[in-house]
């Protein structure tokens, strides 16, 4: 098994279904227009419930990264690089993903999301330099 699988909840299930269709969406508040992630019923800015999905470009900037070198997760082959990305669309929003480039990230560099087909059932959002072309999506494949 290739590491852990996401366990969607009632707020996030529809978001994961969109990811499975290679869509990146965030919530837009009906009342005040604030964009938010992760999916939740309430807008933290105006404390109301009404919202709609808003598809946005998966873009952001590199805030930090690690190179994991300890077998924390059964089935994942280390080392692997996890990047923390500040989302362009969502103020204060941070997301994570594996890094899909041959070189390491740089502080503050602009990145874009790339959807990785982990296996037949699971697609996740990873990150790569804005200027690069996707090179491969086989990183973190199951260990033997």
């Amino acid at each position, binding site marked *: 098994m290739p590491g*852990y699988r996401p366990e969607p909840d009632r707020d996030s299930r529809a978001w994961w279904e969109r990811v499975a269709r290679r869509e990146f969406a965030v919530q837009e508040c009906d009342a005040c227009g604030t964009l938010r992630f992760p999916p939740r019923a309430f807008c933290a800015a105006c404390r109301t419930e009404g919202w709609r999905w808003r598809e946005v470009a998966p873009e952001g900037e590199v805030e930090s*990264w*690690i*190179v994991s070198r*300890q077998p*924390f997760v059964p089935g994942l082959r280390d080392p692997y690089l996890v990047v923390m990305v500040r989302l362009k669309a969502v103020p204060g929003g*941070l997301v*994570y993903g594996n890094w899909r480039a041959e070189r390491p990230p740089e502080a503050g560099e602009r990145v874009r999301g790339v959807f990785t087909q982990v296996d037949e059932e699971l697609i996740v959002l990873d990150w790569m330099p804005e200027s690069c072309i996707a090179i491969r999506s086989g990183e973190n494949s199951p260990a033997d």
Partner: protein
Amino acid sequence: MPKRLLEFSDHTAIAGVGYTPFTKDSGVSTLTLACRAVLAALEDAGLAPDDVDGLATHRVGDSAPPTLVGPALGLADLSWHLDQFGGGSVSHAVVGQAALAVAAGLAETVVCYRAINARSEFRMGGTGRGLPASFEVQYQAPYGYVAPAQQFAMYARAHMLRYGTRAEHLGALAVTQRANAAKNPRALMRTPITLDDYLASRWIAEPFRLLDCCLETDGACAVVVTTAERARSLRRPPVLVSAAAWGGGTSHLSCDDPTVTAAAALAPRLYAQAGLGPGDVDVAELYDCFTYSVIVQLEDYGFCPKGEGGPYVASGATALDGALPVNTHGGFLSEGYVHGINHIAEAVSQLRGEAGDRQVPGAEVALSTAQPGYVLPATSALILRRA
């Protein structure tokens, strides 16, 4: 000034501390560890189990709650108890809430404990347990990003990128705390290390090496909280609870600046409650799940300017003979990992003047802190004072 219903500052005290030995395999249940530490703390205070009317702990589904420990020690009718969900960010909240309960008269003698088999049974972010039951884990686990070592390494690199904090700064902290542990008979790791040892230790999650990470420990620690008045009549020199404060924190998924922790907002409330400032603190026992968490707290609790925590440690300021001795017991990095309560107990030892070879001469005021608000958006801290 707001009208206050309750006089709190210095009205309660820690009257006793107790430990089990720290090991890598206790061979017993967390319930057994908890009972041993509770009884040891009562013995230290010169109290009997029947004096206890309150019990409190924190845990993440990995230990014995008051509803087990009470009956196991024959305490049939506790007038106050607390089973706080949470990790290191709430360790000091537990003792703070016990002090509030005592100050309010809901209980007179509360024992706060933490019992943990963090090596032999439930390893944080490691083997022996499933993923934490956290809403946010679904957005991280698929990337192999699950362990505290990974999460704090992520924040540490953000600090390094922003302020130029270096491996040598993190290493200086590990070396300093090990030197303290060498003077602590309770410590699991007492062999001194050098900066070269630190730099040569294996990678865990870059930028963290093995020696950036706390120990995984089996053990328990407890403290007895009672009224200041009662503590004065007991066996040991009382240590007053001058301030207890709570704070927020950052979410994994929403945070404007991951290099500033919730401690920065909590610190002014804490100091104001005690009527003093960072310059008055004689010794600091700061939550050190990883080297970085101490460095960021030195900044956010006001001991050095923002971004200068690394150079501050490298200057020797946090050594036993420095301006601000930090983690005099060796901390989680070298004494053992008992999820915050052992930091409070060490502060008590220092303020009693009973810390032996590692005693900070004349220590009168101690700051002890919980995890500063990463991962679980919460934090807490105490200021303790010699009576």
